[in-house]
């Protein structure tokens, strides 16, 4: 049975932990709001880009001239998995869920006899994948110095991916990230970016209405790399919002657990204090009786 002093110390330390998790939760809440605003602000560009791409590809996809970023290399043998995770932990299942999805896909691809390579963004995913698949890593992008994710970061990552595609080191690239649904729900998502997957055009035949200058293929060649960067950017922003959301609910849980623990320890503390007092009284009374 722990002494009263021990119990008191434990209560003190759990209280400190609760203060920290509470503070982290509030910080995450503030960051989440900013991350959501950033994701919101980036939407018009991505939407426009997707709309124009849909129009363009509708006319270009059939022809033999279609760029390789759209049509693919004609093979489906070598896959690049781009795993986007966070730089910091203590975010509940945020990183594990992305890594789990990537592992599943990797196992599936391997069982089909395909070659797989991995590009990681963020320290946590790299740590989790390193032991089993360290030999598959081709590159790692470190964002730990980045305070606020900007388009330049996304372009850096996109350039790494595109360079490897140009060099012919993979056929298909897939992004793994967490899609932000709400504070309590982030959905691990895989999204193929090369060859480009184009959403169905919203207005059928919209493309034919436009004049293109220069011609469609030239614009498409210019647009496809940008579109890759835009998609990476969107994924990074979704991930940032998801990370803060996951951290917020994880820290909320931790704070509540600490509160429960404090209650339990306090009850135990009071009981043992009362037991000690009773014991002393008994000793005094039996001492008096013995006289």
């Amino acid at each position, binding site marked *: 049975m722990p002494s009263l002093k021990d119990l008191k110390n434990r209560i003190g330390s759990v209280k400190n932990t609760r203060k920290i998790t509470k503070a982290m939760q509030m910080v995450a809440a503030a960051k989440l709001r900013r991350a959501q605003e950033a994701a919101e602000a980036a939407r018009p560009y991505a939407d426009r880009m997707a709309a124009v791409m849909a129009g363009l590809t509708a006319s270009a996809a059939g022809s033999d001239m279609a760029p390789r970023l759209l049509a693919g290399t004609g093979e489906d043998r070598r896959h690049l998995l781009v795993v986007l995770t966070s730089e910091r932990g203590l975010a509940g299942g945020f990183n594990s869920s992305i890594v789990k999805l990537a592992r599943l896909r990797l196992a599936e691809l391997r069982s089909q006899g395909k070659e797989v390579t991995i590009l990681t963004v963020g320290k946590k995913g790299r740590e989790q994948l390193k032991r089993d698949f360290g030999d598959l890593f081709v590159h790692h992008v470190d964002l730990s110095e980045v305070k606020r994710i900007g388009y330049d970061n996304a372009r850096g990552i996109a350039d790494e991916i595109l360079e490897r595609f140009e060099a012919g080191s993979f056929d298909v690239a897939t992004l793994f990230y967490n899609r932000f649904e709400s504070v309590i729900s982030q959905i691990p998502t895989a999204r193929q970016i090369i060859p480009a997957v184009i959403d169905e055009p919203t207005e059928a035949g919209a493309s034919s209405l436009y004049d*293109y*200058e220069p011609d469609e293929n030239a614009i498409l060649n*210019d647009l496809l790399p940008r579109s890759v960067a835009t998609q990476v950017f969107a994924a990074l922003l979704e991930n940032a919002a998801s990370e803060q959301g996951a951290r917020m609910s994880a820290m909320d849980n931790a704070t509540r657990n600490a509160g429960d623990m404090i209650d339990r320890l306090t009850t135990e503390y009071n009981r043992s204090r009362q037991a000690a007092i009773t014991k002393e009284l008994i000793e005094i009374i039996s001492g008096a009786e013995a006289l």
Partner: protein
Amino acid sequence: MADTMQFDLVSPERNLVSVPVREVRLPGAEGDLTAMPGHAPAIVNLRPGLVTVVKADGSETEFAVTGGFAEINGESVTLLAERGHPRAEMTQAIFNDMMAQAQRQVKVAQERGSVGEEVVAAAVKLLADMEALGTHIGLDPNQSNFPH
């Protein structure tokens, strides 16, 4: 026909400008062009340069953009640019940054021989356009301290 149309300048990070305008002068990849209300629908690639916006009251605003593309139709012009700054806010520091980026692209293209002549030529052209933009608005293209 309405005498104004909607103009939006959108960067990947946020919506920069959204105003009704009378005309927009764009630096197209194959030559400058002006879009006015009722323009035939077009999608145009842009080179680095100045976009001039004429508002309904006739006042002009200029923006420096580093390329991108514009979607034009009769009622609106949407310009998607990776970077866009109002001319008044263009400082040497921002321009240096843009120049350094263009120079890096040329270098990367030249080092990777595999990409072919076209890509190198495109990167060199981009750099030249960027320099022209700087000279045009009175900024020195040679101050960017990108190692050659």
